[in-house]
């Protein structure tokens, strides 16, 4: 598992610049445009300026984008054109280890993007609390979830076009409706339930709580949902990758 991770890490080191800019561009631009641009005309939400309000959620979204991209476009290249997965499966590495190695790698890339976003927040006058240290393992779990979800897509994909659906039907809606940009508490009950079914919502809520050290109720619920969805998604990814790679 670690060896698969290590292989991807070695390759990533070679493309580090392009990879980082590619994955971080979007969250940073949103922070600028929405936080500074739109935020000046918006009153405080839950006692935070709009920029402060959206910053933790954008950290979570950076993790999502990096992990999901790596596990789709990156992993699909290794699966199809490069034949890397097949080469690995000719060695003692099992499909299960390979899949988990890929998930951990996607999570690592996600976490790196998340950490860079976090580290950059003081530039925008957002000062995270000490509680933020606890956010790091949660972001890693989130990365595992989205890497596993990406691998589910990779295991079922027949070409790169397939990932357009994934991006526009899953990732973008999650980005927009998981409570990064608006307060969930003000929604009516039906909308709140709908938003609550989105996996990213819970990470966004946890990120906001920990970032400003205001641990509200329901944090246990958010934690449980994050852990359980991550576990289930990893399991599905392993099953589908086995089906794809062993005929």
């Amino acid at each position, binding site marked *: 598992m670690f060896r698969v991770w290590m292989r991807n890490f070695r390759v990533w080191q070679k493309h580090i610049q392009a990879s980082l800019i590619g994955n971080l561009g979007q969250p940073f631009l949103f922070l600028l445009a929405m936080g500074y641009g739109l935020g000046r005309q918006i009153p405080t939400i839950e006692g935070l300026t709009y920029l402060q309000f959206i910053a933790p959620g954008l950290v979570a979204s950076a993790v999502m984008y990096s992990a999901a991209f790596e596990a789709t476009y990156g992993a699909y290249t290794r699966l199809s054109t490069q034949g890397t997965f097949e080469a690995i499966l000719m060695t*003692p590495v099992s499909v299960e280890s390979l899949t988990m190695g890929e998930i951990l790698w996607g999570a690592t890339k996600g976490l790196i993007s998340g950490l860079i976003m976090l580290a950059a927040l003081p530039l925008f006058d957002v000062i995270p609390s000490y509680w933020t240290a606890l956010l790091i393992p949660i972001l890693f779990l989130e990365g595992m979830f989205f890497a596993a979800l990406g691998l589910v897509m990779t295991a079922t994909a027949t070409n790169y076009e397939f990932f357009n659906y994934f991006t526009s039907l899953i990732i973008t809606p999650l980005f927009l409706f998981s409570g990064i940009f608006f307060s969930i508490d003000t929604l009516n009950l039906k909308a709140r339930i709908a938003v609550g079914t989105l996996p990213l919502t819970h990470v966004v809520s946890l990120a906001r709580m920990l970032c400003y050290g205001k641990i509200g109720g329901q944090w246990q619920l958010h934690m449980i949902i994050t852990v359980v969805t991550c576990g289930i998604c990893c399991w599905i990814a392993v099953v589908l990758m086995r089906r794809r790679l062993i005929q």
Partner: protein
Amino acid sequence: MSGWFMNEAKSTKTTRPIVEVSGLTKHFGDRPVVKGLDFSIFPGESVGLLGPNGAGKTTTIRMLLGLVRPTDGHIKVFDIPLSGHLRRIKQRIGVSPQMDNLDPDLSVLENLLTYASYFGIKRSSARDRAESLLGFFALGNRSGEIIEHLSGGQRRRLLLARALINSPDLLILDEPTVGLDPQARHLIWERLGALRRHGTTMLLTSHYMEEVSSLATRVIIVDQGRIIASGKPASMVRQMVGIEVLEVSDRSDELKRLATGLRSCDVELDMTKNRLFIYVKKWCPELEAIALSHRQVIKRPASLEDLFLKLTGRTLRED
């Protein structure tokens, strides 16, 4: 050549086969690809698996590696059942696949080191081993090169070096020289020949009969998922084809006339539109006459290719 690329063949009193396959069957959907193969490979043997495209060779190899699940049948490798012990078995197998799956993002040396890591080989010993293998396959001055900059022959040699990184007890080569020019092919044959003489157990598939003749101690010919012949290449050719072949080119009515004149000889005939193949088991006066008198006749030793064509037919096998 030092022998450490492969593990020394251990001499045991009762030699158990390295590979033992029985009743091996694979259907993809309702399409049968492999239909009940039985064969064994013994230590030190170099077995050539021959067959036209779609005969089931690659599927068979992939089943030995656990990449394709058999529909039916049993596989034992190193005297261990494959199912449930895949990890242990693959630790001791080296594979050079038909499709080039080198890691394009890594350099030549990094490819070998990364592959070694999948076998749990320590980085320091992996480096020593990788450097010797690169030397053996004439890639010593290429270790820092990006894969994209390598020629087809260099890539194939690197695939072979990679297959040997874990000092395997069984080397599986699926079309090791496919698509290479003669120079590149001969260099690889020469190196593989050295490994074979050293007692390396090999399973090899190829379309180049010359390759199989020189590398395999035994051949198994498969067609449409079944074994249709097996044995030592030279004696198979002698028994089933003959000692020599005459190829006569002429009009078909003239060829028919020649053919009837050979009825009393110990020969087999195969006629295409305007060519007559005479497979000679024993010389007779009528043959001598043709060989001497006919304008367009080629005389050559019988080869594995003749056997192959005789068994699998001259028509194309595209479906």
